[in-house]
């Protein structure tokens, strides 16, 4: 079995997932995991599939692209071998949520994510939200895995200093507070 990772990105429309999955099915590929999202009418997805030995990533890219083109769907497909030795933090982490908001400008994400990169804090989920179309106010929500070895106060101060230098407001909170407030506990 080959494990292949496929990403598909482009204009969203009904039938996109069917076009991709039916092409994979014809090649006897099994979709093991997938994640998809839509942002302002743009579809983006990532599939991890197991394929027979005689099917490689180029075959997959070709058949999925053809399947989309046959339906006049404007999406781009990329496929590559799935590597199992991907990044995983060897030490224990805690889930934190870093929320940044203020006037949008080009360097915000780079500046904040730069602190995470420097401290080896992995971003597990990131959303940038425009509060409303008429204003320039944006909100960034970083869900990060904070290693236990990182000094919480120093990390917090570093982020606050960075945000302050850009005139932004920032909150750094353990994820449990959001779960506690908004969700009935799973029992």
């Amino acid at each position, binding site marked *: 079995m080959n494990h292949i990772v496929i990403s598909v990105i482009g204009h969203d429309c009904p039938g996109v997932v069917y076009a991709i999955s039916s092409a994979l099915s014809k090649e006897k590929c099994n979709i093991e995991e997938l994640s998809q999202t839509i942002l302002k009418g743009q579809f983006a997805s990532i599939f991890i599939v197991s394929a027979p030995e005689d099917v490689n990533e180029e075959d997959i890219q070709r058949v999925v692209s053809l399947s989309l083109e046959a339906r006049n769907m404007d999406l781009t497909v990329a496929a590559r071998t799935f590597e199992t030795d991907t990044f995983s933090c060897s030490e224990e982490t805690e889930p934190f*949520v870093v*929320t940044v*908001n203020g006037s949008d400008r080009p360097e915000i994400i780079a500046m904040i994510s730069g602190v995470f990169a420097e401290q080896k804090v992995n971003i597990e*989920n990131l*959303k940038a*939200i425009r509060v409303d179309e008429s204003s320039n106010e944006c*909100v960034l*929500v970083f*869900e990060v895995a904070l290693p236990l070895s990182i000094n*919480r*106060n120093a990390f*917090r101060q570093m982020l606050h200093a960075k945000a302050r230098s850009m005139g932004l*407001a920032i*909150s*750094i*909170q*353990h*994820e*449990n*507070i*959001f*779960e*506690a*407030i*908004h*969700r009935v506990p799973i029992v």
Partner: protein
Amino acid sequence: MLTEREVLSTINMLRNEHLDVRTVTLGISLFDCASHDFDVFSYKVRAKIAKYAAHLVEHCNEVGARYGIPVVNKRISISPMAVVGAGFNADQMVRACQMLDEAAKEAGVDFLGGFGALVEKGMTPGDRALIDSLPEALATTDRVCSSINVASSKAGINMDAVALMGRQIRKVADATSDRDGIGCAKLVVFANIPQDVPFMAGAYLGIGEPDVVINVGVSGPGVVKKAIDRAKETHESLTLSDVAEVIKSTAYKVTRVGELIGKEVAGRMHIPFGVADLSLAPTPAVGDSVGEIFQSVGLSSIGAPGSTAVLAMLNDAVKKGGVFASSHVGGLSGAFIPVSEDSSIEAAANCGALTMEKLEAMTSVCSVGLDMIAIPGDTPATTISGLIADEMAIGMINTKTTAVRVIPVPGKGVGETAIFGGLLGQAKIIPVNTGDASAFINLGGRIPAPIHSLKN
């Protein structure tokens, strides 16, 4: 993965709606410190408070920072001093109060409660010594609060104690006349006092409580008000059923915050978590007011006809939401209407929209009672006792907690302002009915416990 709405709504509650944990209160039993020798007693109390409270503030701050939720006040409650120090005289009680004040300052807490007595059926010499000590004790200390329980639904009302407390409240005010009678802001008279109140001035650790325990007082009037305002904007045909649902859901959220933080502080200190007190506790800050909720529901201000109904709905909805959110709920749990501590309530009292009589009516459905009300400094002690007796009767008959914390402001009359500062706020002095209660109060004795059937 969290949703945008979950994150944005939480951030909004924190930054714009004054969501916080109002108090984490460390209860410490002092029964094992009891001694006939005052110095031994004092040494043991200081050592025990220092042992358990040394890192209270630090833990609260750390946990608050972890979740981004400030723990505004860190406090200590102790076993009722009149029981623990039953053998002491009034002078020794004053020294005990001063010793507790020093211990509170050393621990870095803003208030310590429990310098009190339980006298609903009668008084021991220790109870009497403590009550006699109150004027000097409260005038010479900053952070110690006192609560005296003079009535209960099971025991009735101890009218001798009610008469005595009327006199003592005047003396406490006079002893702190240079600060507008602030001593009375630290003294509250109760019916049916709960054993696990984390809020001041009523906090104490009851005799059935653990050796040490963490109780938490949540907050959130600002969050409730904004949630109602949002519901009004988004629902075209909003009814009071919808408003009650909004309050209930919001109380759930606020209580979950308190429970999470209280349990984590307790865990870090290796002591048990007691209860979350669901009270909506205001502060003088604009946007952190119980009074503003009344305006959001459509009244011109708190005090207008309809106020008692709004308060009943608010109190009940808060309890319904909070009970589901916390495994252990206790304390006062309801809505507070402290006049000087709530800018909107203070404004209503100031312009005459909210009177003493309406406040009393509202206390029949809220969690506490006549709270932080500035009254003329020359109000007779028997009139204060009359106010207390009325309030105790409401608590006794309705099997609920009620209390009186009034401040007869020395040298000042109706319309003048008393300034207490900080969380205690400020208040214009409001009129008290000038009818004479002296002959009634001077009768003394006890009002018998009420019948608990034939409810009408």
